[in-house]
């Protein structure tokens, strides 16, 4: 029965999603002052879109009828750009300043990025705990009859 591993694969989908989110948040923080990008203009902050998707459609699940259509794992389906207006900062000496002396800075709010980062860390930990739990159960099952 592959049930132990299904539980683990759901948890690991959560781990992967939160790690990807963490990467995106790091990129936001790293580019909090970036005024030049390939697309032109200042950096726009990115955010992830989570989606609940049906868990693995493993062949053997269909075969033994345990396939449960309600069970969901999580997946990052998109990384979208925050369309909020850039921050305008007065800095006439900056090479990217416009004729009024204002520079368009990224729409990254360092504080809210930090809060998001803490949330991502906690979610990651919750998923890691769930994964460990499934592992403990599997190991305990090996002790039956010992």
């Amino acid at each position, binding site marked *: 029965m592959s*049930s132990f591993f299904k539980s683990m694969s759901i948890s690991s989908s959560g781990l992967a999603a939160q790690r990807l989110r963490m990467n995106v948040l790091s990129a936001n923080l790293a580019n909090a002052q970036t005024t030049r990008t390939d697309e032109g203009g200042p950096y726009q902050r990115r955010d992830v879109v989570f*989606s609940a998707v049906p868990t693995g459609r493993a062949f053997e699940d269909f075969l033994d009828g345990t396939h449960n259509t309600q*069970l969901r794992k999580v997946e990052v389906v998109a990384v979208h750009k925050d369309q909020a207006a850039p921050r305008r900062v007065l800095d006439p000496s900056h090479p990217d300043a416009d004729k009024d002396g204002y520079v368009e800075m990224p729409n990254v709010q360092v504080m809210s990025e930090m809060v998001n980062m803490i949330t991502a860390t906690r979610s990651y930990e919750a*998923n890691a705990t769930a994964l460990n739990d499934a592992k403990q159960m599997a190991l305990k099952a090996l002790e*039956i009859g010992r």
Partner: protein
Amino acid sequence: MNKIAGGLFNFADRLQMTALNHRLQRNQVIAGNIANAETPGYRALGYDFEKQLQDVAQVNEPVGTRVTDARHLRNTFAQADGQIRPDVFVRPTESVGEDGNTVDVDGEMAQLAENQILYRAAVETINRKLALLRYAISGGTR
């Protein structure tokens, strides 16, 4: 499970073995909830088998009984064939945040721990039963 060693394992033992499978299923449901704790619009799932197990235990019949006649007594939660097969259901709880997500991570973690402990308890019970059998087989020499 019901066919092997019919006389050695009594009803209570079979109930414990059934419980193991259900705890495993519940672990999956909780893992899914935790993974989707931040998915907008996700509705937390529930998995309640204890109530059904209780009803079967009160009937005091083997878990594997089958209903072959319309006049047969049947426990209300079991399926038509008398088996316990609880479905995963969407838990009717209010949304915690404003994104429509109904997962309460603290509650899920508590359930995870509880489920884990009860799983271990079931394994322990089965192990002790097996130890008793082993003791009897060896003629009480060890």
